[in-house]
């Protein structure tokens, strides 16, 4: 997966991805790590944040629009609208905090069912902060079981050391590219402009309404 810095409007597909999970699990750090290769102490996310990254996967140039949500209960109504139209959802938990893992099945998986408008939407489970191996309380096996149960992809990573960060997004995107209905959605939002396209053929069947 190669990042590209050229004109961002030249892309084949536009995919919307969403990061969810409890506050403090490292969603924003993960996003920053992926989009700008840096890690810094961030202030809590307010409402919804957004980053864009152009990547090349399988010869296709993709624009990834990634929404980072605030974990707080208070922002639920605000963030719920961002499930709509998303082709991929990344569920993040902190391997050093069990509650963030159990909340995934108690809260977050239910949120997806409730708000996601796309049945084919790809879900991905990510256990973060593996650099703090000594403090780990959620095992990898538990993660795998959860993923199997909910039918999601699974990876463990560290936003701090950047281990597996790129892979998280790449796996997800490859799966989206494999899903025809998502591919169609992704291409619908791309370049189109009335002034540089051929005039449409007059539709004979609908000719009566003008």
């Amino acid at each position: 997966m190669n990042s590209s810095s050229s004109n961002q409007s030249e892309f084949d597909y536009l995919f919307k991805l969403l990061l969810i999970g409890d506050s403090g699990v490292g969603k924003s750090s993960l996003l920053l790590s992926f989009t700008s290769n840096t890690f810094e102490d961030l202030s809590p996310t307010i409402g919804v944040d957004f980053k864009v990254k152009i990547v090349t996967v399988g010869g296709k140039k993709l624009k990834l629009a990634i929404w980072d949500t605030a974990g707080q209960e208070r922002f639920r109504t605000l963030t719920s609208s961002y499930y709509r139209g998303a082709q991929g959802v990344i569920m993040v938990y902190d391997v050093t905090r069990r509650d963030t893992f159990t909340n995934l099945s108690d809260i977050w998986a239910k949120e997806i069912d409730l708000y996601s408008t796309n049945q084919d939407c790809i879900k991905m489970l990510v256990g973060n902060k593996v650099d703090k191996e000594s403090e780990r309380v959620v095992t990898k096996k538990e993660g795998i079981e959860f993923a199997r149960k909910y039918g999601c992809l699974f990876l463990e990573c560290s936003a701090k050391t950047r281990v597996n960060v790129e892979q998280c997004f790449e796996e997800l995107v490859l799966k989206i590219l494999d899903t025809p209905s998502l591919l169609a959605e992704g291409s619908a939002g791309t370049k189109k402009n009335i002034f540089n396209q051929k005039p449409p053929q007059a539709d004979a069947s609908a000719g009566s309404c003008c």
Partner: protein
Amino acid sequence: MEYYFQTNCAAKSSEWTDELHELQLMFGVKEFMVIAPATASGVVLDVPEASKLLSSVAIALSNCGSIWPAFVPVHDPTREAFFGIQNMGTIFTRRFDADRIRSQVPIKLMHLEGLHQLFLSKFGLYATDFSTNFLKVKFLMRLTYITPPFDGEDDAQVREHEVSQSPGKKDIQTYIKTIWDDDYPWSNWYSAEDPLKGFELTAIWSEHTVDDSLEMEELENASVFEAEKWLLSPVLELNMTDDPMGHFIGFSSQLRLLVKALDASFEVKFIEDLITDGNPASVPSPSVLDRVLKGLFHDGQIPDRQHDHGIGGTIKGAPLGSLFAQFCLNALWFGNCNIHAIAVLWIEFVREVRWCWEESQPLPRTMTNGRIDLSSCLIHQKLQMLAICIGKKGVKRDVNGNSSVSDVDKDPPIMTEDMHEERLQAVEAFGDEFSFSALLEREILSSDMSAFKAANPDAVFEDFIRWHSPGDWESVENEERSSASESVRMKGDWPPRGRLSARMSDHGNSWRKIWDESPSLPASEQKPLLDPIREGEKILHYLETLRPCMLVEQMISSAFKASLDTLSQTSYGDLKQMKLKIEQLYKTISTSLKPLRGNIVADRAELIGDLVRLCAVFEHVEKLLIFAASIRHKLADATRLCEAIFSDFYNYYLPKMGTGSSNICYDKVFKSKQLIKAHEREVIISLFPHPTANQSWRKVLSMGNLLNGHEPLTREIIFLAHDGATDDQYGRNVPRGSPGEVCTHRMYVCGTSNDLQVALSVTSWD
């Protein structure tokens, strides 16, 4: 037999009073009665029957001492023929006789001279014998002209122009009909039928004494300017004002469809759902869609805020001319504004907006001045915000040259109303963790300080305070004014002596800490407080996932506003009632649409009902305005007449306004007859342009009394013969024309070249 009584007690001030019953006009009588077969029309009384009936009536009337005239209909009802009789005291009897020719009128009777001779023949005399003073003939005339169709003029000009341009192609002339409302603001969207078909001009010649038939010929050539009295009345296209079937197409009819779409939108969760199950027949073809989008996004002018009606500002809609307002107006006419058509248009609209975003192209028709108009609807705010984001994202950072204080960006953060709300929510959410608003303040402050440091490398904290917040600097000088001389101050002593305010002393430490921590960095190199990429994508996300009812609700506000804003640009002169009605409508819309704000709809049926009623009110104002525009256009140079006629129409129309139900019966007929003042005559004449050669061929002119080449619609004349010799001989019950004279003969003639009505009253002493 049935008896009809009709009385008119009004003093007979003129032969031409409008309120006259036609029999009063025809026979010059006041009270009268008509005796007609009970079985109404269709039954024909032949002449012997009618005479028999009339004489028995006459005997009956004289027995009871009645002096009322009595009439019986005779012949075919279409001839409007009557016999009549009136006992006048003991000596006189007046007999009446009227008939009508509804076909080609003999040439002689088409002209005044011939009619005069007809009148004279009723005395059993010939014109040549009529040289004595034995009888005086008096003559009155009323001519009614109707203005030629208003578009005829332009039509003819086009033709003539083409003829002169290409003499060889006379037969391929294209017929270009000018539409009367071409220049009015609504004509971009629809064409209204002219509510004012034309005018009727009535010219009245009061009593003239006629000496001979030659004089009649002169009268036939007399200029209308010689008439003593001119009256003008408008001729209405009644389809427009009396429209129980709702045939009128205008903004109001389309707004009604939009309200219907709103009702339907509550049933649907996502815009896309409207397309997949959509009925394709209700959506215009791709080529229409293409044309609409091109119109919307092509070189859109930036909305001119000057057109914004003051009161209109209270309607939470997009300003006229803005991208979303234009979207709404287009949607009103796109596929008759059904919900499926709206969905198709919206999706393509958003796609275009995204294209502008991706390509960093400026959004057409979106003016911001760097501010968000929080009084407009949210979609418009979002588009303004997007325009700002496109601007910020597209601008390449300049390398900082000569920096100065003015370089510092002190603008408050740019936010749409939902961002303000979000921020409030955030403050609540983080309430305990840390002070969010303090954090934001800190960010802005730090940014200002960095820029200040960059611009003024040697500055200290106090300098910043004096510039940033002068109120927080207390000059020592003020207190020591008495001791410090003016000259010292003039020279200036730098740094100024003084101290931080008490308030600033409290905050002093934290501010100083921020000052110490802020790096020297020009505003242009700082990380912007507003991340244009993030905010822009958020906006597109909002547009792309907007729920149907949220979209249509905002369309309602913006469409009502933009429609009325468009209409109110119509020039209708200084018609105060019109202005008032428009202002009232703005207020009504503003209050009626309040329930739409905040998107909590308590009672959907009630809301829709209210909106439908609002459309009915809108329709009345719209029609009134079109009338105002039309009358103003036609009588622009006769302001007084224009206002008077409008006022008549307004008073006639007013009872209908404000009621939603169309099935209430208004039997009041519109009447307006305005006396034209002398100085207004020229303007009225201009309503009768000379017919072109082309047009005059179509008509056979035969009657005379032409007005700029136009024949009168009707010519009514009354001949009166007074017998001066019978003066005072026959007692009191004598009908008097003028004092001392007995009107013995009266003939009323009303006619054109193929319809002539003659009514005769003859007084005789038996």
